[in-house]
C-alpha cells in the first residue's frame, strides 16, 4: 500500500512489489514517465539512491526492495499531470506488474556419487544442476566480457564527432539485435535480445555517455565509463536478478565498442573438440558464439538461476551446473572432466572407471530416449485401448521439425503472436503465409491449429500502441483488440486461409468471453473467404474454426457456442486464474491458483461433457496437460487431444500406455469428491501404472560378455538395461534398493553365481536380468569365489502378481541345482539362455527341472508359460 504525503510535485510510497523493482515494473514506469517532459526523479529513501524514472536501468539500479520507502519528485512544465499519472500508476497498477521473475528452480539437489564411483574413492565437487544431462570434455575457461583498459589514454578533440561515433555504434548494435530478433530464434533468445534492446534504448545510459563526452572523453571511454557506472550500481543490488543484469550491460558495452573501433576486442574461444565451458558467469551472446555442437556442458561459478546464460543453456539443453566455488583453482584448461547435471556433480578426472560409467550412462540415456521416441511415433493408446491425440505447442517455424520428430500427432497450438513480437511493424500477410504453409507441410496431413494473435496485457507490441493498463489480464487483449485492429486480423486470416490449401489447417481464437465475439470473427472470416474466392486464391472452405476456453463464462454457454464453432481447446493457465480469481504471479495467492482444486476439476468435467454432448472436439493446451501427474485426470475427462511442449511428448505417450481409462475414471470421480487440493494431490501421488506387456525376462535383459570390472558396475549395468526397457523410471533408486539388500550380506551364492534382488516401487514391471561377465569379479560370495553370472531379480513393491514372485522362488531353487547352473554357464547366446529359462534345453543331455518340493510340482510348465507371457 502506498502512503502518500502530498505536495503537488512530490509524494512518497512504499514499494508494493514482493520481488522488488525488477525490469518489468521498471519498464512500465519508465514508459509512463517518458510521456512527460518534466524531470521525474525517484529516490530510494532506504539506500539513498536516486533514479531517473525514464530509465529502466536507473530504476532497477536504485535497488528498491519490497516495502522500501521511496520518494517521487517531478519537476517541469507538465509536473501536475505527470505527478498525477505516476501516483495513480503506483497506487493502482504497480503491484499488478509484479509478474514472477524468470526464476528457474534448480533441477535437483547437488547429489551423491553413484555407488560404482563411490566405491573407488572418487572425489567430486558439487553444484546445483539447472539444466539436466551429463557431458564430458576438456575444460575451456572463458573469462567475463573484458573491456579494454587502453582506451583511457585515447584523446578526443571534437565532442560532436565523438558523440556521433558513440551514437552510431549504439545504433548499429541496436539494428543487429533487431535483425537477430526477426530471425529464427527461440523464445528464450528473443527474451534476452529484448532485454538488450531495452538497455540500448535506455535514456539514462545515453545521457551518461553524452555527459562523459561533453567532459572531453572519447566515444569509447564514455561508453566504457557509463557501463562501469551502471554495472557497479547493479552489482551492489541485493537482488540476484538485478546483479545478473550487469553481465548483460557489459556485453552490450562490448558490442558497442566493437562497432566503434571496428575490430574484435576479445576473440571468443573457438571450441574445436568436445568441451566443458567453465566461467564465473557468461554473457548470453558469448554462449551463443561458442560453437554449440562442441559444448558438452557448462559450469558457472556465480551465475544465478535468473542469469540469461542459464536460461539459454536450458533452452539449448546444455547440461549446466551453477554455484561451483573456486572454479579457477579447481580446474585447469584442457583438463578432462565430467559434468553430471543429473546428480549435481563435477568430476575432475577422466579415469577409466569414470569414463566407463558415464559412457554407459550416456548410451543408456540415448537408448532410452530413442526407445521412447520410437514408441512415440505410434498413436498414444491407453492400456485398455483408448486413443488420445498428443500434439505439440509451438511458437515458431523452427519448432515444427523437432515437434514431429518427437512424435507429435499434430500442432495443438501455434502461438502466432510470436511472429508479431520484437519488431517495429507487423509481419505482412505473405510473411505469415510462408510460416503457416511451412507448418501445414511439416504436419503431413495431421492437424495444425493456428491461434490468431493473442496480444495485449502482458504481451505488449509497441506498434499497436495499446494503452498501459491497471490489470492487463482482465484487460484489452486477445480477441478484444481485434475490432480496433481489423486490418491486421483480416491479413492474418487471409494468410491462414491461404495456408489451409496446403494441409489440415485449423484456426483458433484466443480470449473469447461471449458468443458475439465468435460471430464477429466468423463474419470477418466470411468476408476474407469471399475476397479470396473473388481473387481465385485457393483455400479450404471447410477449415475448422475453434476457440480457446480461458474465460469461465464460456463454460456456461457451450451449448450456444457449439452451434458456432468446430472445436475447443482449454487454456488452463488463464482459465484457472480467472476461475479461482488468483494471480499465478502473486506469491501470496499462488497456492490458490491450482488446477487440482476440486472446483476446477468439476469445471473441466462440465466443459468436456457439454462439448461432447454436441459431438464437438475438445483438447487442452495449457501447462496442466504437460504434467505427468495429471494424466489420469485428463484421460478420464475424455479429452480428445492434449497439446504440450514437444520434448514432453515421448514420455507422455509412454505414460498414457501405462494407464487405463477405467482406473482413471474411478480416480477422477474420487478427485471430484475431494474436499481440497491436498486430497487430490495425495490421490494422484498413488496412481499405479500398469506394467508394460513384457515377460519377466526378455532378450534385451540378457547381457553377455559384460566388461564390467566390479560388482558395482555389474549391478548398474543390469539396472541400465531395465531402465532402457522402461521397467524402471528411477534407476538410481532401484540401485539403492539392490544395495541395501546387498549390504546385509552378499548375494553371491557360490559357484560363481550371484542373485542380487530387491522389492521396491522403483520397479514398474517385475524383471529378471542376466549378466555374464567376461572376467569374473569379486562379490564377497559365500564360498569366496569370484562371480561370473549375475541374475538380478527385481520385483515391484506392490507386486500384485504373485506369479512373478513364484517364478523368482522357483528360479532361486533351481539355482541350487548343479545341472541348471552348468547349463547357464554353457549357454553361448541369449537364445540359449531364454531356452533354459523357459524350461527347455538346447543341449544334448536332458536336464531335470523338476523341483523336489512336492508342492511346486508341475512348475516346469508353469515357469515355461509364465516367462513367455
Amino acid at each position: 500500500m502506498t502512503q502518500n504525503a502530498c505536495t503537488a510535485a512530490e509524494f512518497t510510497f512504499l514499494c508494493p512489489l514482493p520481488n522488488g523493482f525488477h525490469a518489468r515494473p521498471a519498464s512500465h514506469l519508465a514508459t509512463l514517465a517518458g510521456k512527460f517532459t518534466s524531470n521525474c526523479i525517484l529516490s530510494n529513501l532506504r539506500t539513498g539512491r536516486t533514479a531517473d524514472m525514464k530509465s529502466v536501468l536507473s530504476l532497477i539500479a536504485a535497488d528498491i526492495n519490497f516495502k522500501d520507502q521511496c520518494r517521487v519528485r517531478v519537476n517541469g512544465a507538465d509536473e501536475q499531470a505527470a505527478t498525477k499519472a505516476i501516483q495513480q500508476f503506483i497506487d493502482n497498477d504497480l503491484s499488478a506488474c509484479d509478474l514472477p521473475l524468470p526464476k528457474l528452480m534448480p533441477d535437483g539437489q547437488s547429489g551423491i556419487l553413484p555407488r560404482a564411483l563411490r566405491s573407488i574413492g572418487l572425489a567430486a565437487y558439487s553444484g546445483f544442476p539447472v539444466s539436466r544431462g551429463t557431458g564430458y570434455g576438456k575444460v575451456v575457461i572463458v573469462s567475463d566480457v573484458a573491456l579494454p583498459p587502453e582506451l583511457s589514454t585515447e584523446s578526443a578533440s571534437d565532442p560532436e564527432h565523438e558523440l556521433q561515433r558513440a551514437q552510431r555504434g549504439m545504433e548499429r548494435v541496436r539494428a543487429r539485435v533487431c535483425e537477430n530478433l526477426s530471425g529464427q530464434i527461440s523464445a528464450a533468445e528473443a527474451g534476452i535480445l529484448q532485454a538488450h534492446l531495452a538497455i540500448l534504448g535506455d535514456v539514462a545510459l545515453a545521457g551518461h555517455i553524452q555527459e562523459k563526452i561533453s567532459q572531453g572523453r572519447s566515444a569509447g571511454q564514455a561508453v566504457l565509463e557509463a557501463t562501469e557506472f551502471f554495472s557497479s550500481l547493479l552489482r551492489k543490488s541485493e537482488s540476484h536478478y538485478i546483479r545478473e543484469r550487469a553481465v548483460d550491460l557489459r556485453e552490450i558495452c562490448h558490442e558497442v565498442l566493437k562497432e566503434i573501433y571496428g575490430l574484435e576486442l576479445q576473440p571468443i574461444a573457438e571450441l574445436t573438440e568436445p568441451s566443458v565451458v567453465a566461467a564465473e558467469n557468461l554473457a548470453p551472446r558469448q554462449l551463443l558464439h561458442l560453437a554449440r555442437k562442441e559444448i558438452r556442458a557448462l559450469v558457472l561459478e556465480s551465475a544465478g538461476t535468473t542469469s540469461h546464460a542459464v536460461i539459454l543453456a536450458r533452452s539449448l539443453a546444455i547440461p549446466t551446473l551453477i554455484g561451483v566455488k573456486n572454479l579457477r583453482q579447481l580446474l585447469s584448461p584442457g583438463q578432462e572432466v565430467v559434468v553430471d547435471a543429473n546428480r549435481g556433480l563435477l568430476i575432475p578426472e577422466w579415469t577409466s572407471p569414470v569414463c566407463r560409467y558415464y559412457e554407459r550412462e550416456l548410451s543408456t540415456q540415448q537408448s532410452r530416449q530413442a526407445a521412447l521416441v520410437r514408441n512415440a511415433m505410434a498413436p498414444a493408446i491407453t492400456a485398455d485401448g483408448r486413443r488420445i491425440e498428443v500434439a505439440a505447442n509451438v511458437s515458431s517455424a523452427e519448432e515444427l521439425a523437432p515437434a514431429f520428430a518427437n512424435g507429435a500427432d499434430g500442432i495443438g497450438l501455434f502461438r502466432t503472436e510470436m511472429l508479431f513480437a520484437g519488431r517495429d511493424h507487423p509481419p505482412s500477410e505473405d510473411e505469415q503465409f510462408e510460416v503457416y504453409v511451412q507448418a501445414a507441410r511439416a504436419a503431413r496431413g495431421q492437424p495444425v491449429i493456428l491461434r490468431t494473435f493473442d496480444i495485449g496485457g502482458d504481451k505488449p507490441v509497441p506498434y499497436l500502441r495499446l494503452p498501459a493498463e491497471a490489470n492487463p489480464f482482465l484487460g484489452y487483449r486477445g480477441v478484444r483488440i481485434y475490432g480496433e485492429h481489423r486490418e491486421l486480423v483480416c491479413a492474418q486470416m487471409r494468410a491462414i486461409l491461404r495456408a489451409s490449401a496446403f494441409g489440415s489447417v485449423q484456426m483458433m481464437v484466443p480470449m473469447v468471453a461471449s458468443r458475439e465475439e465468435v460471430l464477429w470473427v466468423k463474419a470477418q472470416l466470411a468476408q476474407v473467404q469471399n475476397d479470396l474466392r473473388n481473387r481465385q486464391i485457393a483455400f479450404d472452405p471447410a477449415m475448422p474454426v475453434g476457440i480457446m476456453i480461458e474465460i469461465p463464462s464460456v463454460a456456461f454457454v457451450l451449448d450456444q457456442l457449439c452451434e458456432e464453432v468446430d472445436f475447443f481447446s482449454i487454456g488452463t493457465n488463464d482459465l484457472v486464474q480467472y476461475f479461482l480469481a488468483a494471480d499465478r504471479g502473486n506469491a501470496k495467492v499462488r497456492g490458490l491458483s491450482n488446477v487440482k482444486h476440486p472446483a476446477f476439476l468439476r469445471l473441466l468435467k462440465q466443459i468436456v461433457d457439454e462439448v461432447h454432448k454436441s459431438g464437438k472436439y475438445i483438447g487442452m493446451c495449457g501447462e496442466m496437460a504437460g504434467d505427468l501427474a495429471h494424466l489420469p485426470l485428463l484421460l478420464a475427462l475424455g479429452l480428445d487431444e492434449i497439446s504440450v511442449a514437444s520434448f514432453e511428448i515421448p514420455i507422455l505417450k509412454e505414460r498414457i500406455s501405462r494407464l487405463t481409462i477405467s482406473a482413471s475414471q474411478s480416480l477422477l470421480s474420487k478427485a471430484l469428491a475431494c474436499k481440497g487440493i491436498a486430497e487430490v494431490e495425495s490421490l494422484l501421488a498413488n496412481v499405479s501404472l500398469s506394467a508394460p506387456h513384457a515377460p519377466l525376462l526378455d532378450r534385451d535383459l540378457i547381457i553377455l560378455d559384460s566388461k564390467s570390472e566390479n560388482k558395482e558396475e555389474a549391478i548398474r549395468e543390469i539396472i541400465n538395461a531395465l531402465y532402457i526397457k522402461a521397467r524402471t523410471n528411477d534407476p538410481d533408486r532401484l540401485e539403492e534398493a539392490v544395495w541395501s539388500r546387498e549390504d546385509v550380506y552378499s548375494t553371491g551364492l557360490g559357484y560363481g553365481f550371484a542373485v542380487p534382488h530387491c522389492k521396491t516401487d522403483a520397479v514398474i514391471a517385475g524383471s529378471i536380468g542376466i549378466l555374464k561377465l567376461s572376467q569374473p569379479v569379486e562379490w564377497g560370495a559365500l564360498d569366496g569365489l569370484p562371480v561370473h553370472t549375475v541374475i538380478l531379480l527385481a520385483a515391484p513393491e506392490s507386486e500384485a502378481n504373485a506369479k512373478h514372485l513364484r517364478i523368482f522362488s522357483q528360479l532361486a531353487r533351481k539355482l541350487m541345482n548343479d545341472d541348471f547352473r552348468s547349463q547357464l554357464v554353457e549357454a553361448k547366446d541369449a537364445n540359449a539362455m531364454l531356452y533354459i529359462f523357459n524350461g527347455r534345453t538346447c543341449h544334448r543331455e536332458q536336464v531335470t527341472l523338476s523341483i523336489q518340493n512336492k508342492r511346486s510340482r508341475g512348475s516346469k510348465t508353469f515357469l515355461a508359460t509364465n516367462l513367455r507371457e
Partner: protein
Amino acid sequence: MKIVAVTACPTGIAHTYMAAARLEKTAKELGHEIKVETQGSLGTENALTESDISQASVAIFAVDIHVEGRERFKGVKIIEVPLQEAIKNAKGIFEKIQG
C-alpha cells in the same frame, strides 16, 4: 531321521527358497526325511503341520528374521543357524544334528 525346517530372509525373494532347496537336497543325499516350510514374499508355503512337528526329531531354523509361529515347536529340539549357513554348508548343519 525325520527333520523339519523353516527358512526365512528379509526380502523373501531368493534366499529363503535357495536355502530350502539346499536343505532338501542335502537331506536326501544323507538319507534323511525332511520337510521345509518357507516364510517368504509368497507367505508361508509348505506349512509344517502339528504332526509334522511332533514326528520330527529336530527342527532347523535357517533364518535371518523372526520365525512366524515359533510356539508350534515347543518341546522339539531346535537348531537355529543364519540362513546363509544353509546355503553355504548344509552338510555341516546335519552333522551338528547327529553329533
